């Protein structure tokens, strides 16, 4: 097996190029800059475009322009930069433009710091910008998935004509791990809606403006229908030791790796705990969580935030099972030992109540 050792941020660009992405527009920001730097090396080599834009706002609008032509195109940034891009993201969602956005999350609010956080969950999963839109949000937890899920993001973005997001953090972006490169995508889907400077598309229009209320309402209904379809068909998750688990611990991205180690240690001590890792944050694995609630007694959600995904777990459970939250902020990352303590505490409580 031929593998290469690369940073997660670099793996994103490898996945993008393997997906037939032809352009990258971005702006430097730690800890996402390696994505742009890799793009600066690789895109000109394949006859594509790399452009360092004058601002995050310009970058997302360049992506908007390129996506309008039907080209596979992307940008990457980190939390404060994503905040700046939100206007453009809302326009892209409204104009139904496929594009891939990478958010290598860092600590906030404000300038915060450059350490890893997961506090952009609401911003990316719930919309963030104005209007009734959602983004497809994928959460890789290793370098291999930074490549693979970037490829999936391009595929889903085209399939549903909507922006797709790689939501990751400073650790997954900076970490080096072996990556097996998948085969390049050779056939890209046709985009008869695009404006590509040909006679066939000379009547096409890319826009998010619908002046009359009934028309805009119909457009919004169409978007919601699309989001329902995505929810029906594109949910992805991973689970470890969930079959007989009394405690289900839920986490995504880098946190899921820490949880995995903690769950393995807890299992070694005979604690019936399992891990559910949402790979898609929108669509969220609502049904899977409800199924797990059939057998599990309690849920624990761990995030590098003040508790954002936990809301979705609670909505899914609808009060059926108690849901605890363990959160760290500011770039502090819990050790597996700290998570293990939380699991033990929960387990003791369960046993007490059971007795």
């Amino acid at each position, binding site marked *: *097996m*031929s593998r290469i*050792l690369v940073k997660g941020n670099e793996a994103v660009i490898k996945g993008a190029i393997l997906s037939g992405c032809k352009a990258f527009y971005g702006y430097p920001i730690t800890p996402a800059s390696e994505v742009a730097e890799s793009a600066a090396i690789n895109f000109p080599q394949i*006859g594509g*475009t790399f452009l360092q834009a004058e601002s995050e706002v310009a970058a997302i609008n360049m992506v908007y322009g390129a996506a309008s032509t039907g080209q596979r195109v992307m940008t990457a940034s980190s939390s404060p930069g994503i905040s700046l891009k939100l206007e*453009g993201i809302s326009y892209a969602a409204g104009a139904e433009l496929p594009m891939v956005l990478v958010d290598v999350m860092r600590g906030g609010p404000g300038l915060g710091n450059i350490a890893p956080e997961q506090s952009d969950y609401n911003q990316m999963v719930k919309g963030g910008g104005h209007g009734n839109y959602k983004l497809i949000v994928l959460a890789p937890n290793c370098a291999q998935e930074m490549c693979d899920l970037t490829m999936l993001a391009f595929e889903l973005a085209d399939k549903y004509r909507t922006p797709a997001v790689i939501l990751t953090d400073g650790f997954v972006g900076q970490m080096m791990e072996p990556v097996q490169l998948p085969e390049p995508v050779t056939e890209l889907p046709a985009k008869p809606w695009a404006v590509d400077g040909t006679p066939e598309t000379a009547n096409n*229009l890319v826009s998010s403006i619908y002046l009359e209320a009934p028309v805009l309402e119909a457009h919004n209904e169409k978007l919601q229908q699309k989001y329902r379809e995505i929810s029906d068909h594109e949910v992805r998750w991973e689970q470890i030791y969930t079959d007989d688990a009394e405690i289900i611990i839920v986490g995504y991205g880098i946190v899921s790796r820490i949880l*995995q180690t903690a769950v393995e240690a807890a299992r070694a001590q005979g604690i019936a705990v399992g891990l559910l890792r949402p790979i898609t944050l929108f669509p969220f694995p609502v049904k899977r969580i409800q199924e797990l609630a059939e057998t599990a007694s309690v849920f624990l959600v761990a995030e590098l935030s003040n508790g954002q995904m936990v809301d979705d777990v609670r909505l899914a459970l609808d009060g059926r099972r108690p849901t605890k939250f363990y959160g760290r902020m500011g770039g502090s990352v819990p050790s597996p030992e700290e998570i293990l303590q939380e699991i033990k505490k929960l387990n003791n409580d369960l046993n007490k109540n059971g007795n």
Partner: protein
Amino acid sequence: MAKEILEKPESFYGEFTRKPGANPESTHYCPGCGHGVVHKLIAETMDDFGIREKTVFVSPVGCSVFGYYYFKCGNVQAAHGRAPAVATGIKRALPDSVVISYQGDGDLAAIGGNNIIQAANRGENITVIFVNNAIYGMTGSQMAPTTLLGQKTTTTPRGRSAENEGYPIRMSELLATLEAPVYIERVAITDAKHLMKARKAIRKGIQNQIDGRGFSFIEILSACPTGWKMTPVDSKKWIEDVLSDYFKLNVLKDKNGALKKEDTGITKSKREKEVEPTKKEIMELLGGTAQTAKVSFPQTDVTANYLDPRIKIAGFGGQGVLLLGQLLAQSAMMSELFSTWLPSYGPEMRGGTANCHVIISDKRIGSPLVSETDVLIAMNLPSLEKFEDEVRPNGVIFMNSSLIKRKVERQDVEPVYVPATEFADELKEPRVANVVMLGAYLGYTNLLSVESVLAATKTVVKRKELFAINKEALAKGFEFGRAKAKPKKHKEEVL
């Protein structure tokens, strides 16, 4: 007044069916508004140049947001101020198309000020039509950056004052200071004479783009009778007497003729290559075929205490701490193991100290963070002091005894004192102290084969001339580590 009957250009839709409401023959513009005239000049140029089908028209926010009601070509509607950025993305993707970026003064000079400056400065091969009517028309005549001093608007009810709002911005003059733009002219559309000039300017700006010359910018002083609360006739007179007195009608820049095509800044990098790379070329480019021939490295016999290590490597910047970690992770990968490498990143790294976490395992790795450390490799004293307590009981501490003059304080760990810097100095290459350390670690623990580390060196160390010295350093460290290694008794333990 005699009604002028003109033939509608082919580049306009026959009926404006995209426009809601009745009356699909007329535009949504107010009587006396300049937009309709400017649209017509553009559409006629598109007709005459035969470029309708390959034109992409970018509409801004403002009254001309509905450019797509009229222009029978590809249309993209942009966010407020962002038309030049959107046009950049389109033109870079479609170098053979004709991209017309159309903006008003609020859109271009206020919210989009930086976007137009930067697009101009990059010399994007696009044509920008800038309609300056000194006001925000669509939102109800608020002040624009181009509003004249003393001019009353709904947000300058007492007239614009230099003290509070500053002076009107002359965008054409400002952009003309830039190196890249090839053509900048300000025109008006007040009478037949000026209309002809405006027509010529638009044609020139679009021709420049077709010829691949670069960025052209045509500013058009245009009436907004509704916003100005004037009759169309008074509006024209106001442009002639007042507006064009401040915004002089002039060619601000024209590099045409003086330039050859290759001097216009339209370099290959702005155009996509015509040839698509093959699958094989892509894989090669991304490093995916670097190790097509699978190499098997010798299996090593490792004491249980040293298996599946969680390693922390620390030192000051320049000691090659991160590289040491990468060599370990790379050779582990090449030995068909799982490995992760996680650096400390950001300011603390720039401050002079660096560390990385490396985990090697024959099972899938969970947390890449090393909290409980099996092996600490400390290249300097601060590193030892910072991480000594994190090492688990019976863990191993490799320390650079050339630089750290104290002993390990912990009694429950295995210390290995490696004079790494001295060895490196003996090799006359102080930079290889990290590789000496790596050699010592492998010699002591037998974790990975020397062959795999040498192979990893070839991939990780970019400077090929350093291979020989790294090989020597590795051997020197390995020999030292092996000599220090505890006599093997794990086989008996296993049995």
